[in-house]
């Protein structure tokens, strides 16, 4: 049976494509962007998750653990993922839900049931968005969902890094109603340093899709100190202008709210804790660069 590890299903998504959507977040990503706002989605496997802000420090989880994978320290519950057998005793023991699994293995059928739930809200433009992690990293699952949606007349889109083999990209382009692709950095070296991969494949996939006429939206996350410089935006503008098609580009402002996730994961957060969104003025200036190159800026 084809399954995927789903780390969240957000209904009433209104910023991930057209209309009202249900966004399904799949675990596993070939990139490792230093600013990832869903760091729990990077690795494909299901793990324990600890939400410190709702923990009441009862330590029931630690008492219930038979492998010693959980310990208490000054930052709350520390999880030794290597020692953890994912038996779930601590999840049952926790009275608040602060200790939980970070994802759930779902079959295609189960995912489709979730998608169906909001059918009355989709109208003609709303529907489902596969996100992640990387939706193309679970191709069998994602493609099945997209095909089933097409059969049912549900608009289905994907959010992707497009870091995938061209055949995979082609298969997705066949069945997705729109592909929402990121260009994070135009310079290959900077891209490699910030995300762990080269962007040549990504850009060639975008060019390929543009030539095919696939419905595309390009997104640029504005990450302070990483992607928000004029040079980068200018490079992206030039690239998009060179595609020879009107492809809109959306600038996505930095989202500081993922900070807590890094705290929960006890991973390094690349930013000053007080780093906030980029001021609208600057975003507008960057948008103007796009417009200067004749690119539709959202």
């Amino acid at each position, binding site marked *: 049976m084809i399954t995927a590890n789903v780390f*969240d299903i*957000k*209904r*009433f*998504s*209104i*910023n*991930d494509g057209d*209309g*009202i959507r249900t*966004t399904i977040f799949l675990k596993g990503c070939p990139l490792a962007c230093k600013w990832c*706002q*869903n760091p729990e989605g990077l690795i494909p496997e299901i793990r324990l998750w600890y*939400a410190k*802000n*709702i923990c*009441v420090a*009862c330590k*029931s989880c630690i008492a219930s653990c038979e492998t010693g994978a959980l310990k208490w320290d000054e930052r709350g519950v520390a999880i030794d993922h290597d020692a953890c057998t994912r038996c779930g005793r601590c999840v*049952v023991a926790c*009275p*608040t*839900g602060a200790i939980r699994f970070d994802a759930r293995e779902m079959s295609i059928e189960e995912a489709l049931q979730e998608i169906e*739930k*909001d059918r*009355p*809200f989709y*109208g003609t433009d*709303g529907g489902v968005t596969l*996100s992640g992690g990387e939706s193309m990293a679970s191709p069998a699952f994602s493609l099945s969902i997209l095909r089933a949606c097409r059969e049912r007349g549900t608009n289905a889109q994907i*959010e992707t890094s497009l870091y995938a083999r061209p055949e995979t990209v082609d298969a997705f382009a066949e069945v997705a109603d729109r592909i929402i692709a990121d260009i994070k950095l135009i310079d290959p070296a900077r891209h490699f340093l910030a995300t762990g991969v080269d962007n040549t494949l990504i850009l060639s996939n975008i060019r390929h899709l543009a030539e095919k006429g696939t419905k595309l939206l390009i*997104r640029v996350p504005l990450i302070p100190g990483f992607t928000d410089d004029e040079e980068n935006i200018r490079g992206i503008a030039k690239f998009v202008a060179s595609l020879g098609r009107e492809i809109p580009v*959306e600038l*996505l402002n930095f*989202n*500081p*709210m*993922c*900070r*807590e996730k890094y*705290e929960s994961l006890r991973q390094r957060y690349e930013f000053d*804790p*007080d780093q*906030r969104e980029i001021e609208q003025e600057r975003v507008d200036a960057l948008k103007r660069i796009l417009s200067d190159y004749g690119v539709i800026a959202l």
Partner: protein
Amino acid sequence: MKTKLDQLPLSNRVQSLKQVMFSEERFASVEQAKIVTDVYRAHGDLPRNILRALALKEALARIEIRITEGELIVGNRTTGVRSGVIFPESGLSWVDREIETLPSRPQDPFGIRQEDIKAFHEEIFPFWKGKTLEDILDERIGGEMRAIGKVAKINQTDHAQGHICPNTARWLKFGPSGLMEEAKAEQARQPENAAFYEGLILSLEGACLFMRRYAVLAREMAATSARKEELLEIARVCDALSQRAPETFREAVQACWFLYVILQMESNASSFSPGRMDQYLYPYYERDLASGVLTHESALELIECLFLKFNQIVYLRSSGSAKYFAGFPIGFNVAIGGQDEAGISAENELTFLFLRAQEHLLLPQPNLSARVFSGSSERFLTRCSEVVGKGSGMPQFFNDEAVIPALKGKGISDEDARNYAIVGCVELTTMGNNLGWSDAAMFNLVKALELALNDGVCTLTGKQMGAHTGTLKDFANYEDVIAALNTQIDFFFERMIRCCEVVERAHAELLPSPFLSCVVDDCMKAGIDVTAGGAHYNLSGIQAIQCANIADSLATLKTLVYDEKLVDRAQLHAALVNNYENAELLRLRMLNKAPKYGNDIEWVDAIAFDWARDFAERLTRFTNVRGGPYQMGLYTVSAHVPMGQNVGATPDGRLAKEPLADGGMSPVYGRDAKGPTAVLKSVSRVKSEYGSNGTLLNMKFLPSLFKTELGVSKFVRLLRAFIELKIIHVQFNVVNRDDLLAAQKQPELYKSLTIRVAGYTAYFTELAPDLQREIIERTEFADI
């Protein structure tokens, strides 16, 4: 897509009238009470309906009147704006207790003059002692009402009947003089009912007199005023209305207002609703616009003058009642849009002018209700959404697709059902021919559950209150819990109905309403007072409170105690009796580790529906004293707070005395974790056909959604789904800073506030405090 109508400016006149209105101090008034007392003292032996008509006429003739600078629409029942009227016939005991503390009470204070306190204690109160509705009911069933009151709260015991939508169209068609002719003709035809018609005629004479007095006053003022022409026009309008039916839009608006003022003077009741004003005012509007005597601007100004007037009559409540219904809502409920009797969209230019007026004024009254259905235009839904985004919580939405079938299920004709309106906050009614008695009682199912789990003993007081059903310890199966709850409901149900019958009879005996009977069909024809069953439709509404808590409690019991067996029932029983003292982890488990209503979980939502349906079906076994059916409502307005104070700890992790779910259909605060679409799906499972008395769903949104056209269009899509899901009612509160500050203090209540970011979502309450603060700081209505 905004048209000129949607962008008309706010006039200076309306702006300054609004300012003046709110700068004036609010007082409690005994003026009418003194007049009424005089009449009862002098004519106490007359039949009650004549006595009431005389008292009304006397008040209309004698009460001091005023015309405020700049006003175009005139009339009020006191010279002070927003005065609280002390109304002796229905009940004075709370006034006696609280008159001195009116200015200092925390909720809805009113000033009171020393001489009025003296008049109250010396002239008014002693005369009425033992004679008011409240005193007489206390004598007849006070003990029984107290015995069942924590479960079944009987209402309408200390005020006259409101929550009525009079036949304003008929009032406009005939005017008081035309109605008087009709009453005289009927009197000649039905000599056996001569006294009834005598009352009608007296009250209509009073109405004409009242209008003439305003004409006289306006003319007097014109002699020395800079706005002489305006005052002479007011005088002309008022004179005309005292003699004939209105002919112009301006006259019609003024006539409407006189009607509601006089109804309030007769009954001092909560809510006489104008209903579908955009429909019955439209012919006047259309004609005047065509002839050129009216412009869009002048029409909007008149509507806004009327909107201000709706805020000038407030309802003085006891401090206890003010807690239940904060902000002295008086329930001038105006319904706009919807469909006509043929099922075609009834939207017209007035519909949009009413929305513009709401957008301009953002005042608590009128209670503006948008009727929506599958045929509603995109423009209408969009404009409604834009106005909602301004943060007044209005318009609220009523769904024709759900309401019309629900009403027809209660024997309402197709034509009347399609022409429905709303009274009070959310109660459904037909227009102009209905005494819906929509708040006969409130049945606290959650209290019944508390008793069911504890052998009928109240866990707050230790008193035996209900039936002996054993305790949770004894219930080996989930089915035992169900059976015990049913037994407790049965224990109170019929006793509640019997009390309601006594209350309704007392109203007919003590508070016949001749003026109201002139404008509620078929009283005039039948020769029967509205309180005695003269209306075409005679319903009584009883509220089932609160299905969300019942679903949460039973789903939690079933999951953790009976299915997963993670919680021991003896241990839980002890925790419930002791309000979870020393059992916080157990409480957290009950709260967090079992499914709850509002998350689109079919079997949990089905529990809410089962109990609602059973309750509605229980009601069908009874007929009210006016010969009509009982029907169920699912709303509390703000009574979820005081009603929660009567209920001990519950299995859903709720502590004793904590509020119940708000609204009536809403999930318990903070327990809906899947967003607004899941809430609407859950609510839709509590099927609308049983909520014919009205239902209430509150939803909260962040203002950012309404900031862009795209956001508004997504909101409109949500409305379309609401229509498709056949939910009766929804009201959207746009979250403001205060809400978010409260969320920071009590995050567990705001779990469902979702922050939407592309490719990412987080729950507000799982964010760190500094990030929460930022969102709060960003949330301001700077553009209002």
